[in-house]
């Protein structure tokens, strides 16, 4: 599975201040930290504090600062298409656009960008009406995204469907719906679209967040999850992923599986 590091996000105070002061140091620090911890991608989000007209410049700055320091591709996280475009044009390698909803207007804006820059794209199974309350409605939106990918000629393996994880303390009954959505996404097309989640959402404002996060991640992996935006400082989470990779036969077992996984970065 792909581990996407969540930490370079303007929602965090140190990154917000780094962006406002154009200080690359905290961005470099978290790029290196997450790289060494085994990230495959780094999520980059300017966050809500940045003025809308400054967002493209900030996104490009984040991409350049990160890629000067670590050999990792980025997941460009913004609701602003201009920021996405600026990030894509600064980016080396295969980026992931994070994200479009299932609204046709957004799809028509962002899918062409994905194609132009040969990027992958995350499609949320939600639209202007909000997040569906059950698996069937999420899958209907997932199918909209799949059909669009087909029509635009976007390779199915470049479409990451996000079944939209909600905090378990406010939408407890939704957790099973999300898992069911994952199982069925895999049979929507051949080859299957991929599945991604923003993992830490599951435990927003909960206690024992790490326990909830890693338990849900493992349940997701068993249901077909391909990628997750995660907290790479959570060592227990990474250990659980290394065990899951073995148990799902994604990697050949050997006695040193844990230490090999940890040295991946």
């Amino acid at each position, binding site marked *: 599975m792909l581990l996407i590091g969540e930490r370079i996000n303007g929602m965090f105070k140190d990154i917000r201040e780094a962006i406002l002061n154009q200080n690359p140091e905290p961005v470099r620090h978290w790029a290196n930290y997450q790289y060494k911890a085994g990230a495959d991608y780094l999520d980059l989000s300017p966050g809500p504090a940045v003025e809308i007209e400054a967002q493209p410049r900030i996104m490009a700055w984040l991409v350049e600062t990160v890629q000067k320091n670590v050999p990792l591709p980025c997941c460009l996280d913004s609701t602003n298409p201009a920021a996405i475009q600026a990030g894509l044009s600064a980016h080396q390698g295969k980026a992931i656009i994070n994200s479009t909803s299932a609204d046709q207007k957004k799809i028509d804006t962002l899918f062409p960008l994905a194609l132009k820059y040969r990027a992958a794209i995350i499609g949320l199974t939600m639209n202007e009406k909000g997040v569906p309350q059950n698996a069937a409605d999420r899958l209907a939106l997932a199918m909209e995204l799949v059909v669009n990918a087909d029509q635009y000629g976007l390779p199915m393996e470049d479409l990451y469907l996000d079944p939209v994880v909600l905090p378990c303390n406010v939408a407890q009954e939704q957790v099973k719906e999300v898992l069911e959505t994952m199982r069925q996404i895999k049979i929507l097309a051949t080859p299957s679209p991929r599945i991604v989640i923003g993992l830490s959402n599951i435990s927003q404002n909960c206690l024992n967040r790490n326990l909830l996060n890693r338990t849900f991640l493992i349940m997701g992996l068993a249901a077909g999850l391909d990628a997750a935006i995660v907290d790479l400082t959570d060592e227990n989470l990474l250990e659980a992923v290394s065990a899951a990779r073995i148990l799902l036969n994604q*990697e*050949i*077992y*050997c*006695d*040193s599986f844990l230490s*090999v996984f940890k040295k991946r970065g």
Partner: protein
Amino acid sequence: MPVKVIRENWPGKVNTITLGIGSQAIKIGGEGAFPFLAFEGKLPYRPVVACEVWDEEPGDWPDLLTAPFAGVIDEPAAWAKKCLVYGADLICLRLVGAHPGAKNKSPQECARMAQKVYAAINIPLIVVGCGEDEKDAAVLPAVAEALAGKNCLLGWATAENYRPITTACNNYGHSLIASSPLDISLAKQLNILITETGFNPGSIIIDPLVGALGYGLEYAYSIMERLRLSALTGDKMLAMPVICFVGQETWKTKEATISDFECPSWGEQARRAILWELLTAVALTQAGGAIMVLRHPETVRHFLAHLTSFI
């Protein structure tokens, strides 16, 4: 309507290893696809043949197998030269005489023998010990030193004796055969242990301990398929080329050793035995083997012809 060819795009590939030096060097590995599926990825180097040469006259080989080496079988350097004529890409010198249960030759004696054979040939050299872990751990470092800088391939390093052999290969610039008994997890673990000593994973060749046709060939085949699949999907600890000791396995089967007289219904022994060695080698090449260690020159000839017809 044209048929669309579905291709897998593999993120990983098998390591490329150079054996030998200068104009005599050969390359193996480097595959970016499954064997013979050249439309899916690069298969830059063909499988190669190593011919087996012993440091002692083999006592238990059938006449059929000793006949092509008549006059040279008690002289390893001359035997090796004869193999050049038979089309060998490499020579595999096997230090049978080092075994404590045989002549228990000293490491120095073995090292001199390896030098002598090296001097007689103009193709890369593989040297394997007697298969007794403790003795090989003493013999192979001496061989490594005697052949310093010649970029040979030495074996067998096992989970029991890899440390001194790895250190010697590292110090004197050789590649290493890591051998584990038909188990992919053990193969991976041994590669990890070897690389943890600081040895370059790009200089390891896996010996998965193959079986001959009718004697576990299918186990070896499926392990080698999984090795290749792991290499192609990016597992660096399984991205090593594979060596198959086909001759040693074939020429102990009853199908290869029983004479026409003992079992007339099985047909002519010469044809039967060579087919047995050939079919084992061909199958293991299909499974992704990079080096086939063979014994009979007729097998070598047919095997090379088979490769030519495919590549």
